């Protein structure tokens, strides 16, 4: 583990932007999404999807929380339109992620940006925006490597969940449910350390956390995340103006 992590750090310093470097930079996120993807596959199977439908959903929809909600609503026989509208709201936070990385992809063609955007997730966004700190532009090939590694990991994990889910005992025993929060802790810390605007960033992070908790009393979870992001990014903008 030690060897691997120092190896990763070294590569970040060297800032090699090849496809394979992008694949390597995806490695820290794999465990978290492997366990979530596996769980999604189990839930989809239980909701009555067959293996073809599980694979198709991961290939086309490719969104963790969206797939859980879709499976739940399919199991409860909600109308197609209601499911689609709900998933639109849950996944609309991608608007903000996509907008935030746009300045780093100025020199790319529309079709390349279409591919980059189509495979954008919370975790590839987090890795990419941390990688972007030291540079003005992100490399398309590096981003493609990162995105494709995450995509394949997700598709295979959900298929494995659909096939083996019924025989695997409680994954929580191995602490795997903490892989996702741990990844967010790591991404948040790396982001704050690399920007070196500790005061502003910590206020943004704390207010975002408070807003998401307060919002949970009034709006569904995905709307809370969007609300918290918009409000606390605005707080950050105001503080950095005023300082």
């Amino acid at each position, binding site marked *: 583990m030690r060897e691997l992590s120092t190896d990763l750090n070294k590569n970040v310093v060297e800032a090699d932007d090849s496809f394979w470097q992008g694949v390597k930079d995806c490695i820290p996120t794999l465990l978290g999404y492997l366990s979530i993807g596996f769980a999604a596959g189990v839930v989809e199977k239980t909701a009555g999807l067959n293996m073809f439908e599980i694979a198709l959903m991961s290939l086309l*929809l490719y969104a963790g929380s969206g797939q859980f909600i879709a499976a739940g609503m399919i199991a409860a026989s909600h109308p197609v339109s209601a499911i689609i509208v709900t998933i639109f709201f849950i996944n609309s936070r991608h608007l903000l*992620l996509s907008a935030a990385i746009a300045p780093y992809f100025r020199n790319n063609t529309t079709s390349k940006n279409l591919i980059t955007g189509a495979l954008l997730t*919370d975790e590839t966004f987090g890795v990419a925006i941390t990688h972007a700190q030291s540079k003005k532009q992100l490399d398309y090939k590096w981003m493609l490597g990162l995105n494709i590694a995450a995509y394949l990991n997700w598709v295979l994990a959900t298929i494995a969940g659909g096939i083996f889910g019924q025989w695997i005992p409680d994954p929580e025993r191995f602490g795997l449910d903490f*892989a996702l929060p741990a990844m967010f802790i790591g991404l948040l810390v790396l982001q704050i350390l690399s920007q070196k605007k500790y005061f502003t960033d910590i206020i943004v992070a704390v207010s975002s956390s408070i807003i998401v908790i307060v919002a949970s009393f009034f709006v569904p979870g995905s709307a809370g995340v969007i609300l918290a992001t918009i409000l606390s990014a605005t707080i950050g903008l105001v503080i950095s103006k005023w300082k």
Partner: protein
Amino acid sequence: MEINWYIISVIIGSAIVTFIPRVLPLVVLSKLEIPEWGINWLKHVPVAVMAALLASELLLHDNKIALQANSLSIITAIPTLLVAIYTKSLLGTVLVGVSTLMIFRYLL
């Protein structure tokens, strides 16, 4: 194999409404000159969104505050945070976090 059009419609429809917000800002904004305040605002989005996602993972369950149910994860977050700050390694952070929670569950 019988095709279930209900499920296929859900998959295709939800894929389309997920695809559009993913690609639209990236495709449009990368072509436009964004005003400086807009760029400055967008620079705060990563910390804001990561903190919001982390807080909802850690403190909420089914969109309700669940400090009691999540207490082990919340305690695990402290050593995980320290490891992240000192090692600056994403992989190390994930591995330490997962194994710490596993040890807590085993001991308690």
